[in-house]
């Protein structure tokens, strides 16, 4: 279906066509290059800003340096092994240890220099080592810390967001067919429920299903101790997934259905749809060719943007359900002033976003014959 749209006959005569294709190719190339450069600049500036904020422009350095000084002075003062040491020797030891620790944390370099090192490392996806955090297996590699939490987050975001997306598009489509029905009105009436975020419904669900009825767990990923049997382990995780998953779905499904429904309705009141109906085309064909086809770019955009948000996780929902995902890790990283982890999770999101936006332009050209790549640059 996608290749079919590309072969839409061009209005030009064959004589002019040769020249046209050539210039189109150049234009396409120029447009692609320009687009890539702007996106790259956007990513670099965005990531650098995140680095600056993650350090409050160097203010976090002061906090960390004070913390190091405090901790080392305290630990030496309270260690009985050093008690008989002459005070001048002890002073020297403390100074040495502080200098070591400051160097380990990289605080001996000025922040301006360090910020650019963070930036180049981030851009080359060299995520480096965390300052304070460790993964559950004891590694300090940011890559491992993030990878370890990725499955849990993807399980929660993936299942809930995908169900949410497809359920709302399909329900909306069937509602737009039965526009004005009882169920349609119910959906409109319920759409304000989406004003509340998932964690809010999460609290209610925990209260009802975990605290009062005691049928589902309060939170976490698996029971403690976890079941030994692989199948039982999987089922146990699914049981823990129910409440957070349903919270995410409930918190936006009605608004999502409402928006899609309105969107489809606007398209199904177009003249060409009326025309198709008047011609006597079966409703299924009308829907597929005249409603779904023109709305496809929007559906694809929404889906693509949804896929990249899966990566970030839901910080607060994860906190409420004690779900060991990326959102909660990012929150903990901020609490530990762990810039590499914060930057690491931002850069991956930034790259995925830039890539998606870049690819979407081409996807539009594939699914929508009206869009010609590159024609937008001469606006």
């Amino acid at each position, binding site marked *: 279906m996608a290749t079919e749209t590309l072969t839409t006959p061009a209005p030009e005569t064959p004589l002019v066509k040769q020249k046209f294709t050539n210039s189109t190719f150049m234009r396409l190339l120029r447009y692609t290059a320009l687009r890539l450069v702007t996106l790259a600049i956007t990513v670099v500036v965005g990531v650098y800003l995140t680095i600056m904020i993650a350090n409050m422009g160097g203010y976090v350095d002061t*906090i960390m340096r004070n913390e190091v000084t405090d901790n080392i002075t305290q630990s030496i003062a309270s260690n009985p092994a050093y008690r008989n040491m002459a005070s001048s020797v002890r002073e020297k030891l403390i100074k040495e240890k502080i200098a070591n620790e400051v160097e380990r944390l990289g605080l001996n370099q000025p922040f301006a220099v360090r910020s650019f090192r963070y930036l180049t490392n981030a851009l080359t996806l060299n995520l480096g080592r965390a300052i304070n955090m460790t993964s559950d297996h004891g590694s300090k590699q940011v890559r491992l810390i993030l990878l370890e939490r990725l499955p849990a987050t993807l399980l929660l975001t993936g299942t809930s967001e995908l169900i949410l997306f497809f359920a709302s598009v399909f329900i909306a489509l069937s509602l737009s067919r039965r526009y004005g029905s009882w169920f349609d009105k119910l959906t409109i009436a319920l759409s304000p429920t989406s*004003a509340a975020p998932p964690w809010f419904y999460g609290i209610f669900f925990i209260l009802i299903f975990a605290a009062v009825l005691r049928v589902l767990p309060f939170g976490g990923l698996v029971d403690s101790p976890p079941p030994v049997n692989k199948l039982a382990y999987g089922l146990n995780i699914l049981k823990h997934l129910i409440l957070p998953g349903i919270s995410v779905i409930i918190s936006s499904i009605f608004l999502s259905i409402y928006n899609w429904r*309105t969107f489809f309705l606007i398209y199904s009141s177009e003249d060409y749809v009326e025309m198709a109906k008047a011609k006597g085309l079966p409703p299924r064909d009308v829907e597929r060719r005249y409603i779904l086809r023109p709305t496809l770019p929007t559906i694809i955009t929404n889906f693509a943007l949804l896929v990249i948000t899966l990566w970030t996780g839901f*910080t*607060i929902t994860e*906190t409420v359900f004690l779900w060991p995902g990326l959102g909660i890790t*990012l*929150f903990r990283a*901020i609490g530990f002033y762990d810039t590499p982890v914060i930057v690491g999770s931002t850069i991956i999101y930034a790259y995925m*976003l830039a890539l998606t936006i870049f690819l979407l332009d081409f996807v539009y050209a594939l699914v929508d014959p009206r869009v010609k790549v590159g024609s937008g640059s001469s606006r």
Partner: protein
Amino acid sequence: MKKIKEWFRALWHFPSAVMGLAIIIFLLGVAAYALVTIPYKEAVRLWRGGEEVWYKNPKYAAPAWLNFFSTKKQPLSFTVDSEDGSMTKTVTANSADISTVDITYSFDYTYDGFPDEMILYFTPTIIKKFPFVSISWLTPDGRKIRIADMAVEYKATFRFSQDKKLQTRLNTENVMQALFADPKAETPTPLKGAYQLVISGTTFEAGSQIAAQFVFQGKLFGLAGTDKYRRDLLLPLLYGTPIALAFGLLAALGTSLLTMVIAAIGTWYGGWVDELIQRITAINMVLPFLAILIMVGTFYSRSIWLMLGIAILLSIFSGSIMTYRSIFVQSKESSYIEAARAYGASSSRIIFSYLIPRMIPLLIPALVSSVPSFVFLEASLAVLGLGDPILPTWGKVINDALGDGALYQGRYYWVVEPTILLMITGFGFALLGFALDRILNPRLRDI
């Protein structure tokens, strides 16, 4: 003006809009009441106050109205004082120096549970000699239990449950059960009927007096209950209303107005201004919104007003700037703008008098609909432990409750009360916003 009247008439046809409007007006009323009755400083003082402010309240008391829904009635908390006449006090002078002071209080106990604690606070007026008091307890079945005999030195506090002598005399650590239980019952059940607390004191010098305050800490307290620190939850529930509304409305207003003005300026001047605005919007999409708020809260300050400013700053350059821009691009070409340009209107005049007013029908629903998200944003930050350190807010109550395991321990009221208020607020604005959108947005008018 006529148009606004028309909108209001149209609103009337939407029951949901009327409901939303009613909720918002109710919330504004509550907010005004809270601000008038509790000054800002007083609210902060009470909220941050410890035992010295809240000593009269029981810990973890559920709200009093729970008794309506339960067949097992739990005791309510109360406080009586000998000085304001709520306890009977009679002073008889025996001689020039010595006089007896009798303070009694009788009350009907008709509950099915035992109270938490009973406390007596004595405030004597002493010149040289300490007065002496003996406390006794009369049960409905006629038993008289000796509680304590003590000299009242300065400000004295007598806690029934924690008095070791009383515990040994009653032969139990659970003093409340021993004082209220029916001795004939096999399982501990409270004996219902009239109880009497009798304090007979003696003062040994002229001018010496005894004042007593009897604090009865039951299982239930007030309209909203209390938390771990004995604080009356009515305070944060009431005072959280103006804060939530202020945060939501200010953020929504600031964000949507600034977004619109910036979009208008960008479209009008075009060129590099427009390009810059678009680039900033793209960069802003890369920045992690919640993470930045968390960072500011962790590293810098948790002040709610700083958070408000940053939330506005990060929300200005969002997707809606693009939506506005595409509409402005269209209206920039329309003939009335051309006419304005022809007679020499200045750029600022065109932007603020011609371009922006046309957008108000689109702005208002967007503004109203975005209020809940900001109200919930404040609560979300509080749930993460980044709530304002000094202000009583709904989110702080939820955070305290979750942190204390209120859901595990069955103290549901503590979580439910602020969440219901949040829900009502979110609903009110969302309902009104939806209806306004359907009235004012021409694309939706017939759908």
